[in-house]
Each structure stands twice: as structure tokens, then as C-alpha cells.
């Protein structure tokens, strides 16, 4: 698709923030247009990376569950096995999000289990993953 959605959104941001907004009287209309423009800028940033972020997170969580499933018993063991073996049907964002949500639910349970069991290496491993996830999902906005 050309122009790419990212370019469309970036140019729409520039048009609204740098031409339309300043032409309006200061106040609610101008502020709303500017904030809307910034939303487009953020959506543009997310467009390229959205599938990559989700696919990487899902793969990392499945790998973690696969490695740890044998050290956990009971219902959580079953959840880990099922989650480790799960697959994303396709690369649509909605599909990846659905898988991501299921995997994160299991991750929350595994992390709580690691804390209760006093398993520091597993806790550290999960926290490191979460930090990586959070870093990758940050949105960067230019200072004005």
C-alpha cells in the first residue's frame, strides 16, 4: 500500500499540528486538533512495529513456558504446556493480541508462583522479559 499508512498518518499529523491547529483560535478546538494529531503520530509509530512486537512477545513467552513447564506441577503445569504448544493462527494484529492476552494471563500465574516458591532465577527471568516488553512498547514523542 503506497503511500504507506505510516506516511499517511505522519503527514496527517504534520498537517493538523503545524497548519490547521495554529490557524484556529487558542482554546478547545486548537487543543483537540493538536492532541488528535499527536494520536496519529503515535499510531504511525505503532503501525510498522505492532506485529513484530506481538510476535516476539508471544514467542518469548512460549519459549519460557516450554523451559519451565517441567518444574511446575498441578493445574499451572497444564496451563504452561498448553500455552507453550499454542500457535498464532495468522499475523493479524487482532489474532496476535488474542494470543498475547492468553499468554500473559499464564505469565502472571507463573510469576506469582515463582514469587511464592522463592524461585529468584525465574523471578529475575520473568522481570527481565517484562522489562524488555515494556521497553519495546514505549512510544517516543518529540519534546515541544
Amino acid at each position: 500500500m503506497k503511500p504507506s499508512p505510516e506516511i499517511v498518518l505522519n503527514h496527517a499529523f504534520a498537517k493538523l499540528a503545524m497548519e490547521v491547529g495554529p490557524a484556529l483560535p487558542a482554546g478547545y478546538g486548537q487543543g483537540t486538533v493538536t492532541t488528535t494529531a499527536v494520536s496519529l503520530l503515535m499510531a504511525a509509530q505503532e503501525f510498522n512495529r505492532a506485529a513484530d512486537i506481538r510476535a516476539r512477545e508471544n514467542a518469548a513467552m512460549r519459549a519460557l513456558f516450554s523451559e519451565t513447564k517441567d518444574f511446575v506441577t498441578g493445574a499451572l503445569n497444564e496451563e504452561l504446556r498448553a500455552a507453550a504448544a499454542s500457535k498464532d493462527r495468522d499475523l493479524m494484529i487482532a489474532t496476535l493480541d488474542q494470543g498475547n492476552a492468553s499468554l500473559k494471563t499464564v505469565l502472571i500465574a507463573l510469576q506469582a508462583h515463582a514469587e511464592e516458591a522463592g524461585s529468584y532465577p525465574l523471578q529475575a527471568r520473568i522481570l527481565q522479559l517484562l522489562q524488555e516488553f515494556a521497553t519495546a512498547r514505549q512510544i517516543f514523542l518529540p519534546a515541544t
Partner: protein
Amino acid sequence: MSDKLKAQITAYLRARMPEAGAIEINALSRIHGGASRETFRVRANMENGGERGLIFRRDPVSTLIETERQIEFAAYRSFRDSDVPVPGALFLETETRWLERPFFVMEEVEGGTAASILSADPYGAHAEAIGHQFFSILGRIAVRDVASSDLAKHSEKPAPDKAWMRELAHWEKVIDEDELEPQPIARAAIRWMRRNPPPPAQRISIVHGDYRTGNFLHDGQGRIIAILDWEMAHLGDPLEDLAWALDPLWAHHNPARPAGTISREAGIAGWEKASGLKADAKALQWWSMFASLKGIAIWISSAKEFQSGDNTDPVMAFSGLYCLPYHNKVLADRLVALNAGARS
């Protein structure tokens, strides 16, 4: 602005302020921001009294923060005639016959501006002066007498060792109810906070609830002239406000300078001097975790409102897209550091 709203406000003011004589609205405009209320600036010409600036804060159909306007009104009233600068809170109307939704009316504070959180240098050469006032005023809020305040009539006073519990439970419930997807970082933070409670509050204070850059007016010459946005006010541990004020999201891209003003150390020292209270490091660490968690809860709610179409103000989208990942990163970094510290 609609003629209908103008007529409604005119009718209201004529009924509410008969002593003013004939009243005409000279100007009516909506103010951007403040997604928890619709805010309107009114310039009213009064037969007895001349032109007067008023601010109308009306409940929206949907709100970012589900707060009672009575609480916010009482919070403003709690600081009238005090050394904490606030606009005068005039009337509270819970009936819907005037403007279709409840609202309250305040005096307009003229000649002030509020900073955008995206601004890299919001206060320029006045950053130091603004910073010292910012933390000093917060210290004075912390020691305002609670028992005699209007807010005490509307907000439950927690026991000093229970304040953290109540706040954590409140915001955890918000996350439970509003999350659109699982939040592993927030959940890990909540578990950490329960395992590592803070010391009891030194005193129970009026907590502003959203004391930060952008929520006060300054005159552009280095003077803070009004503290605004009290919609999350309550009674609790004063360190809650200090931690929120210090949160990196409100630091204008430089966490070493909270609120884009002075150093963190200078800010804490100013707060301690003005309040006579101590910012215990362990307690402040807990409330700093809480501040970012509370942020996450608010951003989750706003994202949900926008996603559902209940409130399509772009501020709600901004909160979900920018603020939520930001606070997730802050909390994740803190959890990693705490875990490393616990093992060393």
C-alpha cells in the same frame, strides 16, 4: 459555542445571583484538557459588579476518573483563605435542570497558563522559582488542618496504617474492572506492594490526588497563582502526593528534575521544610511504586473509554497510547531494580 448553552448559563446565573442585577454573557468558550470534566470559561457582564470571569466545570457523559464533583468542590473550599492558592469555589449544582448534568462554578483565575507535559522546558528561566513554590505549596497542603476542612465531610479518614491499603485496593479494583488486556507488570507491582507495605502515615492529610506539572497555573513570571484539578482529592498519606509529583511522567523528559523544575533532592527538601514532615526513603519508595501503578489504572480506564466510544476525547487515546506504556516501563524498571537489590 452553542447558543443553547449560553442561554442556559445566562438563565442559571440570573437565578443564582439575583443581587447582580441584569446579567449578559459576553464570551463563552470551552477549555481544552481536563478529561474528567467539561470546563467552560464564561465572561459575564453584571449590572452590579461589572465583568466577571467564571469557570463552569460540568460532569461529562463519560469520565476519565469517576469522581464526585462534590469532593472536588469541597477540596477547593478546603483551601479558601489559605496560603495554598486556589480559585474561589462559588456554587455546586447537583440538579440537572440547568445544564443537563451536575456542575460547579468557580472564579476564573486570570493571567495564568498551565504547562503541557510534552514541553521540554515549560518554565524557562523561572524553573527554579516555580519548583521551590511547587514543592513548598504541596508541603502546606500536607499540613492543612483536616478536621475543620470541607473535604473531611465528604471523604473518609483512614487510620494511618490503613491509608496505603485503601488506595491500593481502590486502584487495583479499577484495573480489575477496566483492563482490556492482562497487565503483568501492574499485577507484579501490586503483589510487591502487598508484600512490602509502607510504614504508617505520619499524619492523615488532605491529598490533592493529581498534584503535578500541568495542574497549576503560573503567571509566566515565576509565580504559581492557582492549584487546580482537585477531582481525585481525598484524605490519606501525604507522601502519596509527593510521590505523584516526583513521578517521571511529569518530569518533562528529564526525571532528574521533577515537574521540569528543580532537582528531586531539592524538591523533597522543600516539601519537608514546608510541612515539617519527613519523606522517609522506604515509604517514598513504596508510594513511588504506587504512583506509577495509579497512573496505569487511570490510563487503562481512559483507554477503555476511548475504545468503547463512550468518550472519544483524544486525551483519552493519548493516555492509553503514550502514558500507559510509559508507566509500564517505569514500573518494570523499578521491579527489576528491587529484585536485584533483594538478591544482593
